[in-house]
Structures are given as structure tokens and as C-alpha cells.
């Protein structure tokens, strides 16, 4: 059934794209992320941000290479690695050479392997993978390759910044770790154990567990365990409905201590937490919306909101992906020579719309940028999330976080 619909869909999409008359020199970018199923909200929001960023930051400024426009083509991977590989094939068959994906490191791991293999076998039409959200550290360590670029701070970098804050909080003596059972959840837990051990060996980790991803209907039993453990703080990498479910259960079970998260904002999450999350929910991430860093960032956010009243800028880094790709294509002087574009991207330093410098580290293709601890709050919010009045406000900032963190990446570079 699934396979059949996929084929039908694929046929439909290719028929539709072939039939349409596009300007011949449009540069297509395949967006492969969930657009249906439990994580559809995250994917849909990402897609809207890409379309807006491509239009505002690239196309309206004259495009690249003297007039070529960016065009985002959406592919629904239903958050499945298998489905993503099928969609990747479809995208490549359509002649698309830039792949953006972010939701789920499981998917990113599958894509990066497939793209590496494809590029080795088809040196004539190579593909570049722009990963904007999958933060499993392995992607820029053991599994790194020349064609993969990560624009988000990885799980280790975020945890490094987060534990810097926990380090200075004497009230925290017991920490509970909980996450989704897949590569990213495991990476978060491993990083937390490592950094807490280094920075605050006195902190006791009273729980360290993984739950099935997207399958837990009711988090109450987990909340009970967390409270029974006497934890002073909780760290989770959960996202999507798993984040809302966990957060709501824990708060309604009577937890009053900070919940440190990676993704507890927007997609209805901010609104659902509302008042209950005030002073409890914290988030570690890149991109500062509140207070706005500049008039330009302020205007950009307002314009996005005017066009998509029900969506938010949940992943500010998407503007960096678009702007840096545009620069790399211009620097390379070609939208088809992936080797040149890859070399132009690595080592690139970019002034982000969100007030930070972004440096694409050459050694492992990991973007280095400012990482913030953001608080879920109502006060001092210019740009709220979910039209709820609540939003994320920067509490503290780690400048160019983990700029010299070690990597195990050994990259095979193509001949220039």
C-alpha cells in the first residue's frame, strides 16, 4: 500500500513538474522532510521558511549567477528513512542537485550515506546535502563526508552550552535525562553524561532513559518516575508531539524545576505550554528572535508572519542555509559544479540575519555560531510563537560555541 502510493505520488509529482513551464534556469532545491503524519507540523513550517527565505533573501535580490532563481521543491518522506531514500532518487531523477533535510537524524544518516554513494558512482551529477536540523554528532564526526554540511549546532555543541549554564546553578544536584529512542536521543544522553561529568561531577544523574519515538500515547508513567526520582532539573531532546506530551505530563504531575530542552517551541508547543511553562521550560539553540537583534531581522520576522500568520520562524538558521548556498554558487560561478560549490561553502564565514557570525568549519562541515539559552516566557517578547503571546527570550549566550571542539572526521576530498 505504502510503496504503491509512493510510486503513484512520485509519478504524479514528476508528471506535474514536467508539465509546468519553469524558467529554464531555475535552481531547484529538494526539501525532503515529513509533510504528513505525526511530525507534519514541523515539516510544513520548515518548508514555509525555506520558500520565504529563498524568495526574500535570494530571488528578490536578483537571484544568483546574474538572474537564476531558487525554487524549493517539496518531497514528503513521512519521517521514514526508507521513504527518504525513495524521495532522494525521485529528486535526483528530476535533476535536482541540492538536498535540504533536517527532521530526524535517523533520516539524515541514511541520506548522507546514500548521497556519498551516489556521488562516488555518478561523478557527473553529484549532489550536495544541506542539513539544517539533524544534530546527531556522528554526522560531522565518524560519518562525515565532503557533501554534507550542517547548519545547526550539533547535539554536543548544544549540550556543551547548556551544561555551561547548569554548571553555575548550585541548586541543581540531581538531573533526569529522557529522550527518544534513536540516534539523536542517544547522542543527547551521551553528551549530557559526558559534559556533566566534566563540569559538575557532584551532580547525580538520577535517570537516563529512552522511550519509543512517536509511539507513546501518554507520558504520565514517565512523569511519575521523574518526580519520584527527586530530580532538580530535567534534560530532554524530544521534539514534535513527543515534546508536548512529555512536558505537559511532567508539569501536570507537579514538576516545578527547570526542564531543559532542545526543541520545546512553536508548532503549537509554545501555546500548549502557555502559562504552565513560564519559568520552567528552557531551550538551547541558535537564532535570537527576542529581543530582535536588528531592524532587518525584525522586519524579516514581521514579513514572514504577515505572509504565514499561522506559522513561525521556528528554525532561524534556514536563512543561513539559503544565503550561504547563494554565496557559494556565486563564488563557484556555477550551479552544477558541486565540487566547486562544496569548496566555496567550506570555511565560509557569514554574517547571519540573526546577529551571529556563522563559520562553516572546513574540517568537518559543522557550522560554528552563537548558541543561546532561551526561556519560554511572556515578558519582553516582540515576536511570539503560535500567536500565543509567549515566545523565546534570550537568557544567556555562548559566543561561537565549541569553535575548537575536536572532531573525529577524516574527510575524503574530491580533486579540485
Amino acid at each position, binding site marked *: 500500500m505504502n510503496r504503491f502510493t509512493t510510486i503513484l505520488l512520485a509519478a504524479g509529482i514528476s508528471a506535474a513538474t514536467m508539465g509546468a513551464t519553469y524558467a529554464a534556469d531555475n535552481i531547484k532545491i529538494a526539501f525532503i522532510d515529513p509533510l504528513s503524519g505525526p511530525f*507534519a507540523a514541523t515539516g510544513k513550517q520548515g518548508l514555509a521558511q525555506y520558500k520565504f527565505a529563498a524568495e526574500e533573501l535570494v530571488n528578490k535580490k536578483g537571484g544568483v549567477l546574474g538572474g537564476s532563481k531558487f525554487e524549493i521543491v517539496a518531497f514528503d518522506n513521512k519521517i521514514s528513512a526508507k521513504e527518504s531514500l525513495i524521495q532522494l532518487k525521485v529528486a535526483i531523477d528530476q535533476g535536482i542537485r541540492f538536498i535540504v533535510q533536517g527532521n530526524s537524524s535517523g533520516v539524515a544518516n541514511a541520506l548522507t550515506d546514500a548521497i556519498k554513494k551516489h556521488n562516488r558512482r555518478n561523478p557527473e551529477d553529484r549532489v550536495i546535502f544541506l542539513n539544517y536540523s539533524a544534530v546527531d554528532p556522528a554526522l560531522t564526526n565518524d560519518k562525515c563526508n565532503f557533501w554534507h554540511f550542517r547548519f545547526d549546532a550539533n547535539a554536543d555543541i548544544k549540550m556543551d552550552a547548556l551544561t555551561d549554564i547548569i554548571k553555575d546553578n548550585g541548586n541543581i544536584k540531581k538531573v533526569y535525562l529522557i529522550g527518544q529512542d534513536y540516534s539523536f536521543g542517544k547522542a543527547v544522553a551521551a553528551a549530557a553524561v559526558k559534559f556533566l561529568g566534566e563540569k559538575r561531577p557532584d551532580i547525580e544523574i538520577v535517570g537516563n532513559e529512552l522511550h519509543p519515538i512517536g509511539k507513546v500515547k501518554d507520558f*504520565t508513567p514517565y512523569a511519575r518516575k521523574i518526580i519520584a526520582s527527586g530530580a532538580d532539573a530535567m534534560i530532554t531532546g524530544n521534539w514534535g508531539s513527543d515534546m508536548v506530551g512529555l512536558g505537559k505530563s511532567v508539569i501536570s504531575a507537579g514538576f516545578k524545576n527547570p526542564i531543559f530542552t532542545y526543541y520545546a517551541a512553536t508548532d503549537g508547543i509554545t501555546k500548549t505550554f502557555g502559562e504552565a511553562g513560564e519559568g520552567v521550560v528552557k531551550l538551547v539553540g541558535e537564532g535570537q528572535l527576542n529581543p530582535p537583534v536588528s531592524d532587518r531581522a525584525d522586519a524579516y520576522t514581521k514579513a514572514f508572519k504577515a505572509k504565514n500568520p499561522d506559522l513561525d520562524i521556528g528554525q532561524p538558521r534556514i536563512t543561513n542555509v539559503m544565503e550561504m548556498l547563494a554565496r557559494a554558487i556565486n563564488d563557484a560561478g556555477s550551479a552544477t559544479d558541486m565540487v566547486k560549490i562544496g569548496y566555496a561553502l567550506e570555511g565560509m564565514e557569514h554574517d547571519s540575519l540573526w546577529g551571529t557570525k556563522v563559520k562553516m568549519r572546513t574540517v568537518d562541515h559543522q557550522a560554528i555560531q552563537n548558541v543561546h539559552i532561551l526561556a519560554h516566557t511572556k515578558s519582553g517578547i516582540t515576536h511570539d510563537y503560535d500567536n500565543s503571546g509567549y515566545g523565546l527570550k534570550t537568557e544567556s549566550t555562548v559566543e561561537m560555541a565549541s569553535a575548537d571542539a575536536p572532531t573525529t572526521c577524516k574527510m575524503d576530498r574530491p580533486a579540485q
Partner: protein
Amino acid sequence: MSLFAVNILDGLVTGLLLFMLCSGLTLIFSMMGVLNFAHASFYMLGAYFGYQISAYVGFWPGLIFAPIIVGVAGALIERYGLRRVHQFGHVPELIFTFGLALLIEELVQFIWGKSQKAYEAPLALDFPAFAIAGNSFPAYKVFMIFMAMGIFLVLLYILTKTRIGMIIQAALSYPATVQNLGHNVPLVFMGVFGVGTAMAGLAGVIAGPVLGTFPGMAFQLGSIVFVTIVVGGLGSLWGALVASLLIGWLQTFAAAYNVGMSDLLIALGFEKPLDLANSALRDLWSLTLPQVGPILPYLLMVLILIMRPQGLLGKRET
């Protein structure tokens, strides 16, 4: 021990919620032989209608009107959709309800969008009813328990003590005979389908604020509902109740205790491999109970089908 008591209560809430879904489905299934794939979608519709009504006039009117709207929609779908497809046999019926489930999911996304809705429990019930060793138990969950219990008693009364109930029971086993006696069996079917879907809608209204109101909620609960009615026995209200509670507790306790597979294997006399990272059985050794929790109901279903195919309290072979 206190954690145990809290988990008993939590499991009860989960189980009773499941029961509200299953009670309607088990009647529909045994009466019409229709595996209604869309049943959980009516649950989702209930949650969304409840959310929409609560946005204008508050939670309580939603609690009353949303299930009614869902029930009427269900009855109309039976009358003008399912009944026409029924004459072509089971496969078209299956496909019809399956398509309906997809259609409802898409419709919900189209109208309300893909992100989670901030559907909240009413303020009057938004306080901890009591706390056991620091674990507070929300008043809303107490309300859920009483609500589900009340529904069970009302249904039980109607099915066993009233004339309508007797006709329904008779139509369950011998529809042709009941029809020959002059009863309007299609009308009974429509009524049962409507009430069944209204119950699912009510479950949605009640569960929406706790489990989240988002387009994936039907999918999340869809398969477990079938497992429950098969375990309980088709057509048996008591069976649905017992199976729901059983599965509710099974899931709650599985998630609540971090018993590892390694504990079990060591207790059985196996030796833990020294070099676990390179052992072929590494995954087996590192499994924990919360991780295998979600498959336990399915395991239970397989066991029941082998040992007692008619289900725990079912009367006839499935």
C-alpha cells in the same frame, strides 16, 4: 509503594479512556462485521469539535455538543455510505472505512492545520486533586474516571435492561430473525453506529486536553483499539472493559519500571557477555521494559488468539 498506587490510578485512566473507544467499536464490529478503520478518526473529530466549541463557549458545552455532532455524522455516514457499500461485501466495506479514515485526517489538517491545538482542560478542573509522595493527580483525571464509569453503567443498563437493548442483542446474533419479527434492523444498525461514534467523539473531547489534539492522534490510537476488542471478545461490553483496563495497566506499568532484559536473562541463568559492545546479542541485552512496552498489547493479542480465539469474555469464534 506510593509510586505503585499512582500507577494503578494512571493505568485506570488510560484503560477507561480506551474503553470509551472500544465499547462503540466492539458493538459495531460484532453487529455489522465491519472492521471500522475510521473509528479512531471519530475520536479525533470529537477532540477537534470539542476544541472548536470550547474556543467560543467553553469546555462544558463542547463536552455535550461535540459527541452529538460526531454521532450524527457517524449515523449519516452509515446511512448514506456504509449501507450502500455493505451489499458488495466485506472488502469494499473495509476499503470504505479505510478511505474514510484517510479522508477525515486530511480534512482535519485542511481545516485546523497540522500543528497541535492548545485544547485545555476547563479551569474549574485545573488543579491537583491530591498528591501521593509529591506526585500530584490532576482533578481532571478524576473527572475522566467518573465520566467513563458513568458511561459504562449507562450502556450496561441500556443493553441488558431495556427493550432497545434486547433488540440490539438479538440483532447481534440473529439479524435476519429479528428483521422477520418486524423490527427495523437497518435502523438499529444506524443507531448503534451513531452511538458508537458518539462515544468515540466523547472520548476525544475528554482525551484531547490530556493526550494532545493533533492530526496524528487517530493514527496513534487506531491499532490499539482493535487489539483491545479482540482481546476482550467481540460484542462483549464487559470484555471491552476488562481488556481496556488490562491494556491500560500493562502499558502504564511497562513504562513505569525500568526492568532491563539483562535482569531477566541473568535471573534465567544466562551469563552477560563481557564484551557487550561487540556481542551479536547486544540489542537483546540492553533492552528495557519501557522500550518493549508498546508491543506488549500486541503480544497479548497474539497469545489470546492462540489460547482463546473468542477473546477473554467473547461468546463466539472470531
